[in-house]
């Protein structure tokens, strides 16, 4: 039962990783790309970690995997702000786009 649940969680996490990578390639600037990395990647990783934790041999190993996810979440979120602050300082202003309204009514 735990193997099945673990596999289901891992399979659920994979599309988020794929979407995040596609976002990294398709989004136009560093700021939009960071949205993909901080949100989709973290949820994907979280689901995979939960899937592995469910299948772990002991409670301590399961908690260690969840702890690793928590630390990566913290590092990723802090890193995103540090990267965007650095990008701003180095003269890369965020693009102001409104593609959604441009296509509205067509």
């Amino acid at each position, binding site marked *: 039962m735990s193997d099945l649940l673990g596999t289901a969680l891992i399979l659920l996490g994979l599309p*988020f990783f794929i979407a995040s990578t596609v976002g990294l390639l398709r989004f136009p600037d560093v700021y939009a790309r960071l949205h993909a990395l901080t949100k989709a990647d973290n949820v994907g990783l979280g689901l995979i970690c939960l899937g592995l934790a469910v299948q772990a041999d002991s409670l301590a190993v399961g908690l260690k995997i969840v702890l690793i996810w928590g630390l990566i979440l913290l590092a990723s*979120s802090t890193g995103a702000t540090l990267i965007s602050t650095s990008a701003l300082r180095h003269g890369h202003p965020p693009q102001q786009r409104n593609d959604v309204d441009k296509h509205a009514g067509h």
Partner: protein
Amino acid sequence: MHLNTQRWRGLWARWQLPAWRVVLFRTFLYSGLWWVLTEGAGSVWLGVLLALAIALFAPLNNAPWSTHLRWWKLPTFIGFMAKRSVSGAIDVAKLALSRHCDLNTHTRTYYFRLLTCPSQQLLMANLVNLTPGTLTLCMRDNTLHIHILNHPEIAAQLRELESRIAELYGWNHGY
């Protein structure tokens, strides 16, 4: 060498014994971490001794998890953030995989209303990155400069997040 000795003396002079409840809580928390990191196979006494030493000497007074934090409200808050985080991930994933990838991006400045302590503001700056459509660009002078992706109205969302963090520290304000 002389400078190092002076530095240690300065640190020792500033050291104060934390309240016994704080020491007890931190020792318990760090012992738990030791148990998790060693996967339950490490020496218990060594773990407790290390935990006690860190609890007594680590300068954690400026950390956002101060003594004011209402620990019993954490599960509700984690549930709230998990829901927001999944919602944000689904939004970004849909956008990345959509055929046209139509982006609506702009920036906005958010002024803190309730959080005045820098460590709590830093906590909010980090959590903004996990909520749908928002990314903290920088934090200065009681404001957050935020990049917004496909979310025209985020003011209410940010106010709610700030109120939830304020509640964690015991301030009850509606949102």
